[in-house]
């Protein structure tokens, strides 16, 4: 009997430990359960937000909203924006203040999303139909969200922005789904483009003429070669510093080189990736070999954009390709250094001169119940005054042509190159599969950097070609879905 009981006891303990082990396993599987069940959980998250929104609707808007007291009789427009400026919500509402003053019937509720989580939230909103009235979308996201049938066609209200001619031409293709009709699902809000920032003093010491030497790839490379080994204030500077693979901007940094060599990302059929074409390969090779030839800092290739900018701002690099926001950073943080810095448009490649154009647009979800009020807000944000006011706070560039004739450009010599660059800006093909394919391109181009950095033994150009071929194959699968 004792024996029997002991056995029972042992069985119980055994059962308990099994339950313990199973629950441990289950708890950890939760991670993957969550992964695979993103829809349900994030829908909840969005629902919560919507609930929160309606709660504030009842109690009045937040303290820093201009019209704080009452919402009776007012149309409340909900809006999602990204952290575009230092204080995203306050800065945006500052720009909106004159509009809200004049339009007492409208109030605006802003939610700032993080770029990292924005994609999930936006797509959840698109699938569940429970989103805000207006959302900011990255230029590469518009086609994907529009293809899900979640966005309102804005073509009809472009007249209210002054027509299509009012915008910088290169921004317009990003508002459509390429090859799928003429509807415009977004209004271009701002441009993010990268130009060359250079140190005037280093150019002088190296005998480089910034006026002419940054015109073409070859003259640019020759200039970098001259700058190699130059010491300024006892420090040897690296000719060019750029982030490599650990960054959100990997593809943006490659794109102008691919285009400049005559390459493209997607063929005319909008279905086939041609990132492995000979032209694209030549562009990638030219750019990455700046590193293998010692003209570009290898250690910087492990850093992200912000860290590489910090490197340039601390005087360790002679040149860098970066966005217009660098101007504001320099003026604010390093006013002395700013005086020594000039800007030049992206150099011209053998097949033409191109600069990467990204940025964001504003879209209206077709689930919105306040479309007219949403249009009025977008209309206001497309006026030259609001565009300039917002970009003074954000540091990017306006999309409305008229703004480039204002003192926004004339007061800041470093913006001149960006204005010039509007002529040859180019955006990524606006197809629904672009967003997902970016990660594949990022992975492939990371492998290319690994090759240059000697991960697979000595640098072999033909291996770069192999990685591009693999990337093209994988991307084509995505474009054909």
């Amino acid at each position, binding site marked *: 009997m004792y024996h029997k009981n002991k056995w029972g006891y042992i069985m119980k*303990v055994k059962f308990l430990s099994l339950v313990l082990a199973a629950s441990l396993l289950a708890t950890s599987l939760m991670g993957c359960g969550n992964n695979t069940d993103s829809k349900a959980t994030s829908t909840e998250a969005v629902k919560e937000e919507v609930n929160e929104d309606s709660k504030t609707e009842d109690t009045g808007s937040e303290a820093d909203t201009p019209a704080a007291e009452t919402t009776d009789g007012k149309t409340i427009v909900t809006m999602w924006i990204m952290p575009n400026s230092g204080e995203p919500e306050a800065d945006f509402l500052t720009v909106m203040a004159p509009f809200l003053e004049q339009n007492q019937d409208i109030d605006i509720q802003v939610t700032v999303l993080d770029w990292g989580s924005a994609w999930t939230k936006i797509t959840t909103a698109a699938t569940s139909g429970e989103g805000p009235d207006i959302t900011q979308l990255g230029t590469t996201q518009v086609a994907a969200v529009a293809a899900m049938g979640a966005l309102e066609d804005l073509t009809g209200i472009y007249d209210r922005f002054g027509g299509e001619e009012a915008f910088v031409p290169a921004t317009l293709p990003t508002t459509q789904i390429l090859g799928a009709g003429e509807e415009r699902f977004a209004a271009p809000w701002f441009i993010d483009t990268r130009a060359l920032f250079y140190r005037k003093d280093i150019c002088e010491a190296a005998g480089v003429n910034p006026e002419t030497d940054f015109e073409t790839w070859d003259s640019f490379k020759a200039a970098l070669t001259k700058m190699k080994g130059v010491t300024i204030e006892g420090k040897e500077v690296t000719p060019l510093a750029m982030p490599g693979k650990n960054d959100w901007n990997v593809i943006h940094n490659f794109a102008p080189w691919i285009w400049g060599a005559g390459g493209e990302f997607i063929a005319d059929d909008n279905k086939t990736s041609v990132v492995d074409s000979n032209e694209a390969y030549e562009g990638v090779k030219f750019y990455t070999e700046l590193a293998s030839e010692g003209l570009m800092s290898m250690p910087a290739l492990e850093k992200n954009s912000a860290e590489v900018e910090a490197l340039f701002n601390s005087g360790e690099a002679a040149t860098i390709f970066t966005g217009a926001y660098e101007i504001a950073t320099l003026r604010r943080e390093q006013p002395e250094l700013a005086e020594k810095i000039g800007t030049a448009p992206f150099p011209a490649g053998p097949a033409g001169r191109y600069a990467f154009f990204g940025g964001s647009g504003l879209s209206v979800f077709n689930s919105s119940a306040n479309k007219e009020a949403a249009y009025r807000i977008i209309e206001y944000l497309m006026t030259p005054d609001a565009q300039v006011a917002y970009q003074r706070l954000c540091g990017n560039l306006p999309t409305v042509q008229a703004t480039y004739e204002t003192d926004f450009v004339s007061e800041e010599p470093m913006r001149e190159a960006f204005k010039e660059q509007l002529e040859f800006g180019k955006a990524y093909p606006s197809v629904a599969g672009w967003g997902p394919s970016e990660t594949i391109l990022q992975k492939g181009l990371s492998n290319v950097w690994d090759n240059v950095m000697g991960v697979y033994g000595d640098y072999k150009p033909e291996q770069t070609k192999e990685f591009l071929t693999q990337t093209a194959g994988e991307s084509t699968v995505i474009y054909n879905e």
Partner: protein
Amino acid sequence: MNRSKNQSKRIPKRKKTGLWARITENKLAYYLIAPAIVAMILIHFIPIVSGIMMSFLKLNQFTLKKFLKAPFIGLDNYRTILFDQNSTMRSGFFDALRNTAIFGLICSILVLSIALLLAVLLNREFKFRGLARTLLMTPWVVPSFVVGMLWGFMWQNDGIINRILVDVLHLFPSKPYWLTGPAVMVAIIIPTIWRQVPFVMLMLLAGLQQIPDEFYEAAKIDGAGAWRCFRHITLPLLKSVLSIQILNGIISYVYSFNIVAMMFGHGAGFPGKYGDLMMTNINRNSFQIWQFGTGAAATVIVMLCVMGLVAIWYRVFQNDLVVKE
């Protein structure tokens, strides 16, 4: 001994031991665990089952709206992962699987050994023992994604680690690239160990304190040295705690994500052929490339692998999970 004897007296002899009889007999216990069971079903079981269902569907950005009503494609997602040369999942899957295995094995061994060593040391009386314990616990307090960001920063070519190794200690002729190439494995293992050791150490320390001092005193009288005490008293009596920690380790290393993801450009980067783990791979394919179906299939494959490992673990340690009398 006494306790079990009492227990055997207390538990009445039952003739009928049917399931229902046992349930009604332990009604209170079932009431008490009911909320936990409901929660487990809601937040564990349903997501797992829907995850498995997703792995049979063509679920991408165009069909996401239909979710579980997306087109059924049978085992095609599995075929894609295992055989389709043009699939982005296939190209990195076996690298990630291999990396995860190496990562898990090395982390398990090193974490357990270091934690055991520290636990044994901390179990002794010495001055400032409390302070030492507190300090050793601090890495555990740091959120894992912060650990990833910080170490990612320190591992950079011109970062503090290379400065110490090369500029101060002169251990390498030139500064190595820790975040590129095969060295990535070192770069992800060390922070993981650093973060994981305190927790395991704490568990082992708790286990050590359960061992009565008399055992050691008796062994000493018999002339046993420190090593023999450790081998014949500490280790056998810690075995049940150790076995749970091994299980815990297997699971947490296979599902390791935060540190690796954050170390490469704060989630933007690709850890590369030698550093990509299963979870970063699945996350990339599911949430960035929008292949939710294949992502779910890969998760199921990983889940099966882990179940296999847990089964092996159970066979090896089943006797140690039983309280011996």
